[in-house]
């Protein structure tokens, strides 16, 4: 009896043994098992399966027998790389890859800058501070569908479109512009929307960090005769450096993955087609799932570059 337990695998022995530690580990696995099953089954397996699909010819006709879909080699990838919607054509027609990069970098920079401004404002003591903080979070917590459609409605080129009306009244423009249906304007506006909707995230994180800054630093600087701008530049910014770096990359990744915002605002038209929208179109408009999966893999590769950068520079520094 003793010999058999000794020859069995260590893992098995541990699982079967009745020591305190083993019982604890067993309970831990039982507690966490449902979560693991769901996440493995619906995130990890699909993610790997996606690689497989990207090398196969999968359409609506063989979706029911997807595991026997014909192998296509890199066919899907070359098809994506040569697709007019993907590759760079001209400055007014940048293609999804470059549009994605422009959109996510500008959107993220705007988000962080606006978030920083909001956090600095809210860090001042004033009467409506709590209320202001709650209100400032509105764009971030409101459902994306409703805010996107309000923006579309406000930016409408109809005479009753309020932004066009006000801009004409203020002599900024002389005739209505279909902001979300015009190359250039459309990309600019989805970037501004990005800043408007996601600055509260940056604001909250920066605000939390600001409140942890040692107040005596400012007093010492004041005594030494530093003005407000100098204090900001030499104390506040260095203190915020890491948190801003972390927010920047986190938001960059999320913006890069973002589908809803552009899909709802422009439908991916007028020079705003980003990789997630392109993936959706290949898969669920053209029903070429292989090509869609290949597009999403390209997106993932770019994302992994971000992630490696994130892990190497930001995660390490934050600790």
């Amino acid at each position, binding site marked *: 009896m003793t010999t058999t337990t000794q020859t069995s695998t260590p893992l098995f022995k541990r699982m079967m043994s009745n020591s305190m530690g083993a019982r604890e580990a067993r309970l*831990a696995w039982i507690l*966490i098992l449902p979560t693991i099953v769901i996440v493995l089954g619906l995130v990890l397996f*699909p993610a790997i399966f996606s690689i497989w699909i990207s090398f196969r010819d999968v359409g609506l006709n063989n979706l029911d027998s997807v595991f026997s879909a014909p192998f296509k080699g890199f066919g899907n990838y070359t098809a994506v790389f040569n697709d007019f919607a993907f590759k760079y054509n001209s400055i007014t027609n940048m293609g999804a890859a470059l549009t994605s990069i422009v959109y996510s970098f500008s959107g993220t920079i705007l988000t962080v800058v606006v978030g920083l401004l909001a956090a600095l*404002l809210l860090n001042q003591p004033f009467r409506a501070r709590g209320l202001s903080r709650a209100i400032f979070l509105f764009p971030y917590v409101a459902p994306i569908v*409703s805010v996107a459609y309000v923006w579309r409605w406000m930016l409408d080129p109809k005479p009753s479109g309020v932004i066009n009306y006000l801009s004409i009244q203020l002599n900024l423009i002389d005739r209505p512009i279909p902001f979300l249906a015009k190359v250039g304007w459309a990309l600019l506006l989805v970037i501004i929307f990005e800043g408007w909707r996601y600055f509260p995230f940056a604001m909250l994180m920066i605000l939390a960090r600001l409140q942890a800054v040692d107040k005596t630093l400012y007093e010492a600087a004041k005594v030494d005769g530093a003005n407000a701008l100098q204090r900001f530049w030499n104390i506040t910014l260095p203190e915020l450096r890491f948190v801003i770096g972390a927010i920047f990359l986190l938001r960059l990744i999320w913006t890069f993955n973002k589908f809803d915002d552009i899909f709802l605002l422009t439908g991916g038209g007028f020079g705003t087609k980003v990789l997630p929208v392109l993936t*959706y179109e290949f898969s669920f408009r053209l029903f070429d799932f292989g090509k869609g999966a290949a597009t999403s893999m390209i997106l993932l590769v770019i994302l992994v570059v971000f992630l490696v950068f994130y892990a190497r520079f930001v995660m390490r520094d934050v600790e």
Partner: protein
Amino acid sequence: MANIESQKATFIEHLARRMTWPRFFFWLGMTVFWTTIIFPFYWMVSSSFKTGAEIAGRTPAFVPGTLRWNAYQQLFNENWDRFHDFGTNVTNSILVAIPTAIIAVILSMLGAYAIARLKFRGKELMLNSVLLIYLFPGILLIIPLFAMLAQISRWIGLFDIQDNLAVLVFTYLATTLPVALYMLANYFRTIPDEIEQAALIDGCTRLGVIWRITMPLSVPALVSVGIYTFMIAWNELLYALVFLNDRTMFTMPIKIMAIFNDPSPQMEVVMAASVVMSLPVMLLFLVLERYLAEGLSAGGVKG
């Protein structure tokens, strides 16, 4: 009259004396932020009370003529035309969001307890992979999920993947569980475990400890995780768009899309639907803002 004028003058003088440049910039910034944030929401609510004529007028109507509920009546009218029966869609959203929230809270509470309190191998690996999943694009998963579930439903034949709200709940769980797990594990670590140890020594089982001690102590965290997962499921667009085809099965976001994309869209109805969809989450948020804000900065709402 002169009295009022002089009062005005002293008020402006007073203001000028109190107004320094930093103060000026502060209030300027505040005004800009408040206006740009509030105006879209004002526009949503006010447009939902406008008439078709005000919506399509020669100038925008800044204030609706009267407080008319026509758009809302149309929206909820079952017989209005082929798709304005919004009540069904509200029900669908509730049927998806509430089970998602409840199941996510229960499962992540158990998992997070294991991570925070128990020793087992592979814990660190698990926490790190949870973080990675958090950064994973949803668009990448939708194709394989769609193909995989189509395949499974053909094999088993018990369920349809199209127009099945339970399938949606499962996919939402997959995207919300990692976040919930992470947030709760972090919270549990802040609770000192002396009480738990005492209870264990007194003969309480681990599950008893979770039920009697950990859960009551972490009600705020559980509530905020519940609300986050609720909000994620309530607002989700992409998976619902792919998995739902039948208008009677639509959740609110894609129903609003359908109303908006109608050949002759009625903006007041779209705005009314947006108000109906936003109101519950905004109210929940305002009431519970104090502890929700904390969770938000911990990354509660992805995206």
